[in-house]
């Protein structure tokens, strides 16, 4: 028999970035809030304490902080005609678990969004005509504008303690010649911290990009360039470029995380309770299916517990949110044949390619072990719609950058193409090039398509006997066209550095989604936001169209993938949704947008 807890005003599923932000906002509004996190308690101490955390084998290789796939994973197939297989080992993406979620061990690249991408379909139709968008590509507008979100981008940067160089503030150009990004949207205020120093690799990239005619800028990073206290009173110390950043908890209190930047304030809040090791199985609905009554979870002892609540917030990360909606029967599951239904629709990813440049030992010392997760130099000349897509013939843009986050020898040692994988020749190349190479990426927006979608797997189950989520996903012609175009541009930047050798790591026509190698953990869609309940699962305030006391936060709301990394927009949307709950919903609980 399930145990039933005392009813609360709001229950939050997952305590990563979105869960933490919403918990703070709702307790500020006076609500009693319980956050349920499936993973263990985690914090800087002990999970990121020096020197134990400086251990590549334990963290990058054995993946100590990431989701435990022995208990719960996803299945994958390329097309509806294939049988799906479970992702048995972590590799392509590395979702978080435990208090802080992926926010504890993310890298900290902290962008806003290119405003064009919020109204992608409308923009392309206006500039290039309806026919330009290929058949089967299901991109949509978000239903919210950059101007509406701007105050929330600004506040999130202040909470995260983000370092960067503004281009323009309230219409006045301030960042010219200083490392600002001329393509960046206007801002209401500066970054809370100035940009971090640049790595040698970043500087080389910037000079080469400039020589080729592009506009390098300092990447905004949620790694601190100096000491900082955020609006919640949480303190951070300066990042020292330790290089053990992505996949690690920061031992210096320098990388923004829910644990460092929000939880210390929430701990002072008697209306807030955090329960770790609480795995939510489903959202419970009233008999009419139109109201959530709370959630059911399994606690550390394996006991089922019912937590009644007035308001249910899903902040369980993109694909977990979608799975919870499907398991709970909230919204209509998407059907790729009819195109009807919304839950699972528009699953999109990132379209990444990498070029490595290898220098002679008297040419450059790039010391790639030095780095910070969000640190780098980038160009936006080919991001968003900053160039004419007409002749290029594809949808989407890509920033390009050197983002030297700390390259370590087991996971990141690179040798020039053609080097054998072992033996003396490999050893010599490893020794000759490790401290003399750099890596650059085209990060790549990824579009949504009619037949890339999510549903429940009919065969494979998790440790609780519940069906796994199934991803039906593959690269499409548009993705490959874009990748080839961008790689071509990036190669010219690499060549301008005069390296001895160049390695290109990119998809080509016929390439399939590869579960065995890491790309990014930037998964999007499946519970997308929009203005029409027949084409979106949640409204512009991230409220379920079907069950209005359920809000679904995170990149599951993105109708397609961004050129930039997602978390800046994920955080801004969480604050935007919180504002709607605080100012509108709590006064008149119910649908915030009439269907």
């Amino acid at each position, binding site marked *: 028999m399930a145990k039933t807890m005392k009813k609360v005003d709001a229950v939050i599923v997952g305590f990563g970035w979105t869960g933490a932000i919403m918990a703070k906002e709702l307790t500020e509004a006076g609500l009693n809030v319980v956050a349920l996190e499936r993973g263990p308690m985690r*914090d*800087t*101490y002990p999970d990121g304490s020096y*020197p134990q955390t*400086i*251990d*590549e*084998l334990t963290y990058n*290789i*054995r*993946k100590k902080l990431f989701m435990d*796939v*022995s208990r719960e*994973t996803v299945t994958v197939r390329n097309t509806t005609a294939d049988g799906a*297989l*479970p*992702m*048995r*080992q972590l*590799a*392509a993406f590395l979702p978080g678990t435990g208090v802080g979620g992926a926010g504890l061990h993310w890298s900290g690249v902290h962008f806003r969004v290119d405003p064009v991408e919020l109204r992608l379909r409308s923009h392309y139709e206006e500039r290039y005509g309806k026919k330009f968008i290929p058949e089967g590509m299901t991109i949509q507008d978000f239903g919210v504008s950059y101007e509406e979100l701007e105050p929330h981008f600004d506040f999130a940067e202040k909470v995260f303690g983000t370092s960067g160089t503004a281009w323009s503030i309230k219409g006045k150009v301030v960042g010219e010649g200083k490392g600002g990004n001329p393509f960046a949207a206007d801002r209401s205020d500066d970054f809370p911290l100035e940009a971090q*120093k*640049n*790595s*040698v690799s970043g500087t080389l990239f910037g000079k080469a990009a400039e020589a080729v005619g592009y506009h390098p800028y300092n990447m905004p990073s949620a790694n601190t360039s100096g000491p900082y206290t955020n609006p*919640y*009173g*949480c*303190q*951070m*110390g*300066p990042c*020292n*470029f*330790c290089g053990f950043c992505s996949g690690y908890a920061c*031992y210096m209190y320098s990388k923004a995380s829910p644990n460092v930047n929000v939880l*210390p*304030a929430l701990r*002072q809040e008697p209306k807030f309770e955090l329960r770790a090791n609480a795995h939510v199985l489903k959202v419970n609905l009233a008999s009419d299916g139109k109201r959530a009554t709370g959630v059911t979870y399994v606690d550390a002892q394996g006991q089922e517990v019912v937590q009644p609540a007035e308001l249910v917030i899903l902040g369980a990360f993109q694909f977990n949110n979608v799975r919870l909606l499907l398991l709970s029967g909230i919204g209509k599951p998407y059907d790729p044949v009819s195109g009807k239904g919304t839950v699972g629709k528009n699953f999109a990813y990132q379209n990444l390619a990498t070029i490595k440049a290898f220098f002679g030992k008297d040419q450059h*010392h790039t*010391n790639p*072990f030095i780095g910070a997760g969000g640190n780098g130099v980038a160009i936006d000349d080919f991001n968003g719609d900053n160039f004419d897509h007409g002749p290029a013939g594809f949808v989407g843009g890509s920033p390009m950058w050197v983002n030297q986050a700390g390259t370590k*020898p*087991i996971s990141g*040692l690179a040798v020039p193409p053609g080097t054998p*994988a*072992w*033996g*003396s020749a*490999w*050893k010599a190349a490893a*020794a000759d090039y*490790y*401290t003399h190479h750099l890596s650059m990426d085209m990060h790549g927006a990824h579009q949504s398509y009619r037949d890339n979608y999510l549903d429940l797997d009919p*065969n*494979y*189950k998790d440790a609780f006997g519940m069906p796994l989520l199934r991803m039906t996903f593959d690269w499409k012609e548009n993705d490959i066209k874009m990748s080839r175009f961008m790689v071509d541009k990036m190669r010219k930047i690499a060549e301008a550095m005069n390296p001895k050798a160049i390695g290109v790591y990119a998809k080509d026509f016929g390439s*399939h989604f590869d*579960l*065995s190698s890491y790309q990014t953990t930037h998964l999007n869609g499946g519970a997308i936001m929009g203005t029409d309940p027949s084409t979106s699962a949640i409204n512009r305030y991230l409220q379920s169209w079907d069950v209005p006391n359920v809000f679904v936060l995170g990149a599951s709301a993105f109708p397609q993938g961004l050129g930039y990394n997602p978390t800046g927009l994920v955080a801004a949307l969480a604050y935007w949704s919180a504002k709607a709950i605080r100012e509108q919903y709590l006064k008149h609980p119910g649908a915030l947008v009439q269907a």
Partner: protein
Amino acid sequence: MSPDDTSPARRDFLRKSLTLIPAAALAGQAASGAAAAAPGHGAAAARDYQPTFFTPEEWAFLRAGVARLIPADERGPGALEAGVPEYIDRQMATPYASGSQWYMHGPFNPDAPKTMGYQLRLAPREIYRLGIRDAEAWSRKQHGKPFATLDAATQDALLAQFEQGEAQFEGVPSKVFFALLLGNTREGFFCDPVHGGNQGMVGWTLIGFPGARADFMDWVERDERYPFPPVSIRGERA
């Protein structure tokens, strides 16, 4: 409201960047930051170690195999000198080696394309057990002798057959076995010595990786050789 200070270490980190080196390393720290002594021939052998997972025959194969994957040569010590066999044997006692960190529920489809990731039901312990058995059988079939007794060129040729999937294995595809062996060998060559490999930090010294120093505030902008030798989690200095 003030942020909580539940962590004893927290206050120390705020406001300034400390130069952090594991305590034991400080004792022997020369202020000059002189380059590490160049490792070369005659570098110390790995410490003595008695395997607990591998049988004597398997151990002989493992030692001979890793010594070819990362050989000792004019660039310095190789996998054997770094203690890679000890590392791999010690790994066999971890949850990783029993596959308990992987999703291991059937049905399995071992013929799935490589892009679907690992799809076998075998855990690393089983891959070693079956793989070494099959590698030895293949070696005897081709050359009439155990792998460890062959000359280096013949061993390299056999390893290349395993790598390419050209050797006929019974229990596990030779490519899968080879990939595991090579992956674990690199791990053991470059991991922190706390895991039993990279003894004397010879792997890090070879490539110029500074180990657990993890503080580069003053070095990030310099296009120069980083002069300090590596340190380990336990505070050893190369």
